[in-house]
């Protein structure tokens, strides 16, 4: 089936098997391997992208459902060669170790901080229930998100 999806500002048209999950479309068809697959039950959030501005677990949508949509992946988050503030904050705050959950974590957090300026640490920890990290113990991730959320409030 033919789909047309804009990803990181580039229009892509492809013929796909309808059962293709969006995450596989991104990774296999477009070779955008930033979105990772860490579970098969929509729990871990490693595949998080933005679809029409909203956070989405790209393993839980068929590519055909995204026909006509505008998708942003971690590869498209930086603008003008500059890291997105959430990318910078993760780096500065040691908010990652093995890096596998990181693209999804950053995509989810970037949307959250924008929508929730000044969010409290508790709110951040609650929000992150959809993104699992095995390395960092979340401490520095929370710190990284808080820094951006605080900056967004000023």
């Amino acid at each position, binding site marked *: *089936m033919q789909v047309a999806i804009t990803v990181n500002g580039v229009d892509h048209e492809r013929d796909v*098997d*309808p*059962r293709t*999950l969006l995450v596989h479309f991104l990774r296999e068809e477009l070779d955008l391997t930033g979105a990772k*697959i860490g579970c*098969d*039950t*929509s*729990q871990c*959030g490693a595949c*998080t992208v933005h*679809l029409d501005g*909203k*956070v*989405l*677990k790209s*393993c*839980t*949508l*068929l590519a*055909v*459902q995204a*026909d006509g949509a505008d998708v942003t992946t971690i590869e498209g988050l930086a603008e003008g060669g500059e890291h997105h503030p959430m990318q910078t904050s993760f780096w500065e705050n040691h908010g990652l170790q093995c890096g596998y959950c990181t693209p999804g974590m950053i995509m*989810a957090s970037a*949307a*959250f901080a924008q929508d929730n300026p000044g969010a409290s640490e508790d709110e951040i920890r609650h*929000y992150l*229930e*959809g*993104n699992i990290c095995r390395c960092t113990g979340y401490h520095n991730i929370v710190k990284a998100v808080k820094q951006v959320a605080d900056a967004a409030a000023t």
Partner: protein
Amino acid sequence: MWPNKFEYTRAGSVDEALGAISDEGKFLAGGHSLLPVMKLRLDAPEQLVDIGGIDSLRGISANGELSIGATTTHAEIAASADVQAMCAGLASACGQVGDQAVRNFGTIGGNIAHADPASDPPTVLVACGATVHIQGAGGARSVGAEDFFVDLFETALDDGELITSVSLPNCSDCQCAYVKFPHPASRYAIVGVAVCLKMDGDTCASADVAVGGATVKAVKCAGAEAALAGSTLDDAALSAAAEAVKADIGDWLAGDIAYPEAYRQQMAGVFLKRAVAAATG
């Protein structure tokens, strides 16, 4: 992680969807209940009819009663000022489904069609006397939420029928809350309790109570309702209601090895009290 092969049809209207669906087919709205089970190959429909693009199925209207289109997302419901005003418990429950990404794309219609007993919205729909509006090849019908949920993952939907909307009576004069004890892994409800109280000063004039998570389906709890109604929601009434709710759900208990039925049953009593506190707090 690899769904089975299926035929895919994108429907532009309800009629088109009803015309396209086959006996082995399923409707696909947000896909956030269906795709997870297909990824594990626990379900393998031969056909999916995508209703996600049908505009008439989406949106919230508030004309005397609350009407919510089947493909309205949990996030839209949770954020809706109308829902918050007319059924605060439903806004709360939809705000507790999954996580933000799931709420952004998961729909109320898909959720209740899946009829996971540990999901949050059904419990409120049953407590608040919602009606599920259904359309099939043979026409439209409406079923009360209490009758809609039949058993574990089983609803009153017949093959080929489509949920078009859910309606709820205006509950803006109620004290309404949904409180959940989440499973630490899945965040589905170990037990979820919805209460909807009509207060007359300090006295509870009437109470609606439903329990999910601990049960194979969302269960309306008449005993607990009777214990609360007419009381001032004092400790004695709450304790009586907590005891009664355990009996109310006694025939419908669900559990697993980690959180057995008996534990969930006890917790229904605890969380009933917490739900009342949340509703009146």
